[in-house]
């Protein structure tokens, strides 16, 4: 049996209330909220967070990492290698980026399901758009990760039953690489182009799996527009279509298919058949049967928990984070680019957040050290993974003068459970929330970008409900 071994979605903490848009811009916006990647997040960091959630609690080691996003941090250079490094996956494995389209993200899942070995299929997206645009309002930032493999690698929670794909060429939407504005043709044109392809794929997928629509308990529809999703949902022979979180998260682009598959599986009961329907430059329909193992599986953080845990972000700050509104920075020099050589040498620390431990004294070093702090032990250390450790704020400060892409900097001295201390920048909180005694967990972020090089490292964030 082959299928999904584990799954998890990652929703960034911040929420933009869409009703804030029109009073500011004079147009756009709408009801509900959308998720917003923090100024220190990008598609790579969100992919890491989703991957961490999907791998947590599962003793499985993917040997292939497929990363899909429409908004990669780098061109030419692979982005998946940073995800791979931050997840501390084995060096002897394949990590690669899929093309920058929604279709590629679902395509990665298909390739993994129909291939062999154990794959981590991760997709993440930052949904951009000009102020007041429909894309800005309806989009949402998110990531989702799926571990795909055979039951020998780990308990399969959703057995892959079959799929069908249809491809076609038409210009429904487009974006020039590097730009933030996605242009669209005409909603009606999108609908009449995509929905018939979806129907074809739906029927062929059922046929391939030897099922009828009656056998399917629930479906999720990923489509570029709400209008298209609604229309498609009406043509699935009466199968229940689950909510796509448009009112709270928004459309997560390349992450939408895996996000909705995660939602489907979070809601499914063992034995039920579910369908993922993806409309993007064609159509893909994938069918899964929830196994008994799903009954005991729960992602480290469910979508519902993350939807409920968000914090508000004013629209002005949203625009500043997106680079749409330039805000006067503190009068401090901007950081220069990091050294690729030093970063490569310190990959385990920088990306994996791996410190060292003196087995003799239990002392933990962050960054890792060759010599113990008492000077008495040299080269006796063992690596210690700190990325999943939690800690407590011992003391903290608010730095209003330090350089930051979004000042002020909230900085805390954190003592980790089980030993080790590190002064850390905190993220995903308002300065007033910082307090001694707060519980903190680690999150992979970008500290700044200089000369086009993204400086990825870890920050702390408050342990919130869920």
């Amino acid at each position, binding site marked *: 049996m082959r299928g999904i071994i584990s799954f998890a979605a990652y929703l960034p903490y911040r929420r933009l209330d869409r009703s804030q848009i029109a009073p500011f811009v004079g147009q756009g916006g709408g009801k509900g909220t959308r998720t917003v990647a923090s100024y220190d997040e990008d598609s790579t960091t969100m992919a890491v967070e989703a991957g961490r959630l999907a791998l947590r609690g599962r003793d499985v080691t993917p040997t292939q990492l497929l990363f899909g996003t429409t908004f990669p941090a780098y061109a030419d250079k692979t982005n998946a290698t940073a995800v791979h490094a931050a997840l501390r996956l084995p060096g002897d494995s394949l990590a690669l980026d899929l093309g920058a389209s929604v279709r590629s993200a679902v395509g990665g899942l298909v390739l993994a399901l129909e291939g062999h070995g154990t794959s981590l299929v991760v997709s993440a997206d930052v949904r951009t758009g000009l102020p007041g645009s429909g894309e800005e309002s309806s989009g949402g930032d998110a990531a989702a990760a799926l571990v795909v493999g055979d039951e020998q690698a780990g308990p399969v929670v959703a057995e892959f039953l079959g799929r069908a794909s249809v491809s076609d060429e038409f210009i429904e939407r487009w974006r020039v690489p590097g730009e933030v504005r996605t242009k669209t043709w005409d909603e009606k044109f999108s609908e009449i182009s995509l929905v018939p392809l979806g129907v074809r794929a739906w029927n062929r997928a059922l046929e391939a799996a030897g099922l009828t629509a009656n056998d399917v308990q629930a479906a999720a529809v990923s489509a570029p527009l709400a209008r298209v999703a609604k229309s498609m949902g009406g043509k699935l022979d009466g199968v229940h279509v689950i909510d796509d979180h448009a009112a709270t998260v928004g459309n997560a682009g390349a992450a939408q298919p895996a996000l909705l598959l995660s939602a489907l599986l979070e809601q499914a009961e063992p034995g039920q058949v579910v369908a993922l329907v993806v409309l993007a430059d064609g159509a893909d329909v994938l069918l899964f049967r929830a196994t008994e193992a799903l009954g005991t599986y729960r992602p480290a953080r469910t979508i519902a928990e993350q939807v409920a845990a968000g914090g508000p972000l004013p629209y002005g700050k949203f625009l500043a984070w997106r680079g749409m509104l330039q805000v006067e920075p*503190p*009068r*401090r*020099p901007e*950081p*220069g680019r*990091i*050294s690729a*050589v*030093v*970063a490569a*040498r*310190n990959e385990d*620390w*920088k990306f994996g957040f791996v410190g060292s431990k003196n087995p003799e004294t239990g002392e*933990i*070093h*962050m*960054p890792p050290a060759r010599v113990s*702090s008492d*000077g008495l032990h040299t080269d006796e250390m063992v690596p210690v993974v700190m990325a999943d450790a939690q800690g407590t704020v*011992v*003391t*903290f*400060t*608010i*730095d*209003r*003068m*330090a*350089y930051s892409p979004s000042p002020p*900097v909230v*900085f805390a*001295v954190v*003592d980790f459970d089980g*030993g*080790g*201390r*590190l*002064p850390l920048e905190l993220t995903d909180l308002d300065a007033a929330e910082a307090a*001694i005694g707060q519980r903190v967990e680690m999150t992979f972020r970008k*500290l*700044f970008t200089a000369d086009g090089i993204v*400086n*990825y*490292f870890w920050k702390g964030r408050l342990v919130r409900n869920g």
Partner: protein
Amino acid sequence: MGSHGIKDRVAIVGMGCTNFVEAWDKGLDDMVIESANAAYASAGIEKDAVDAYWLGTANGGMSGITLARPLQLQNKPVTRVENYCATGSEALRQASYAVASGAYDIAMAIGVEKTKDGGFQGLNAVPPPHDGTGRTLTAAAMFSMVAPAYGAKYGVGADKMREAMAHVAWKNHYNGARNSRAQFRREVSVETIVNSPKLAGDLGVFDCAGVADGSAAAIVVRAEDAHRYTDTPLFIKALSFIAGNGSGVTNPDYDYTNFPEIAATAVDAYAQAGITDPRRELALAEVHDCFTITELVLMEDLGFSERGAAWRDELEGVYDLDGELPVNPDGGLKSFGHPVGASGLRMMFEAWLQLRGEAPPERQIEAAKPGGDRSMALTHNLGGYPGEMVSFVSILGR
């Protein structure tokens, strides 16, 4: 093995110090020419009489040529040294050991910094190539974590802490207002200090030292030669320096209420100088008041106040200009300003003036004058942050 010091083997026989200002119209070259010439004149020697130079500058330039070129030194050894904000003290330390060793007869320690040419706030250094995982906090933020930790440990309420820190700033501005070389020569009310805009944590603008351009210089010779140059040389009683191993930053036992590197240099310096009760033996102390909370904690690390008592001593005026032990009678970093490479030598310049009775009458400490009952001064210069610090302590005396 041991730290033996060079007590009474080396003397300062001449000093110079520029005004510490935002010197928009002067370059680094102008500043070293001014302080060096003042030091030559003070010692009554010609430039060529100095055998070797130690230049302290954190960011002013690389190599000894930074000094040799503006002074047009002819075939002289010039060493540029850097040790964070203790750079100026380090220059004096190296020059002193050089003459003590007999390698040279006359050496100059000179420190300089042009902090205002960069266009940014605070002090900014260009880091060597790095992996991007280091902290990027300002010094103010790092030191701001000390105040709440200290208050909590000793049960001092936030209001009392605020008051004690404000007193440090008030005192140092009071003293600086009586110093023609100081950057800020105005008394500042406690109310203004308390209500100044916050920069980091609870540290406001008036809790932070001024950043200035400036230069200071000292000429040192072996003690037996000192009286050839002046009747009132200043003898080096102790020089102590420690570069911390940085472990405080990641040591869960460190509680941000003291600076162990400083306490260790103080112990070493007192042993070298034979001091047992610094609060009663010293005529004055020039300490590294980069932030008000720093000076407060230094009073304990240097052994002037009992642990947990510095805030009360500060408020009771123990360290005021007319107090039991005047601290920073020249205004300190707070109002004299902080040209990094020069500050350590600037502190010694105040000791030079006070112990020779040459400070202006409005801030001359009576006990410090020749014939007064206290003949030694302490200078303390630190660099870095809580948990990761370099510390220097000198004792100078008649």
